[in-house]
């Protein structure tokens, strides 16, 4: 693959609500935008065989994930009239109730932002090499798998 500047999407630890708020605020100067769509992924305290998930530890093959995300971004921009797109995914330990994924799309009209946001979320779940180890309260674990 040719050399290009790949946008980093990874954040160590959970995505703070203040980070999300700041990201929204930054768009107030872009007055051609008429609609934003935001998806937030939150770690769920699943109960599996009587044991409760306390946090997920995320790891990734980062170099490959950033290349794949670049392709998804280009495809989605080619398909929808978007003004901008921001994607952030957590790495490391994320407790139940914390945010681990932030996808933010903006366009002149709502439909493109909503559809692009959904498509980006679906594709990144299927295509990015990211793994999650679900840690239970008793220190045992299992590996998460996207359905």
């Amino acid at each position, binding site marked *: 693959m040719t050399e290009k500047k790949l946008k980093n999407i990874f954040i160590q630890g959970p995505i703070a609500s203040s980070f999300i708020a700041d990201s929204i605020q930054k768009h107030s100067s872009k007055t051609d935008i008429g609609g934003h769509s935001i998806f937030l992924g939150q770690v769920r305290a699943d109960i599996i065989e009587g044991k409760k998930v306390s946090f997920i530890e995320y*790891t990734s093959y980062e170099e490959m994930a950033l290349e794949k995300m670049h392709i998804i971004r280009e495809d989605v921009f080619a398909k929808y009239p978007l003004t901008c797109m921001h994607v952030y995914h957590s790495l490391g330990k994320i407790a139940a109730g914390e945010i681990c994924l932030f996808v933010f799309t903006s366009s002149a009209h709502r439909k493109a932002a909503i559809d692009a946001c959904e498509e980006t979320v679906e594709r990144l779940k299927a295509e*990015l090499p990211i*793994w999650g180890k679900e840690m239970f309260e008793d220190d045992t674990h299992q590996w998460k798998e996207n359905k």
Partner: protein
Amino acid sequence: MQINILIFGQLAEIMRSREVIFNDINDTETLKNVLQEKYPGLSELPYLIAVDKEIVSANTILNDKSIVALLPPYAGG
């Protein structure tokens, strides 16, 4: 020829390592067979092989600059 293999997620747990080095592996089919022999536990888990950050399904020739990675099922988001 030496091939470095990056290992991720549950595979790193099964293989007890994040990276292994194999000698005399010329293609991904041979790699799969060697892995199966050395790590019988792998038959429990479906995984993909990436060569230079692209997933390969057909047999792929490797060279000493190939970046090979073993990828268990994804769980992002």
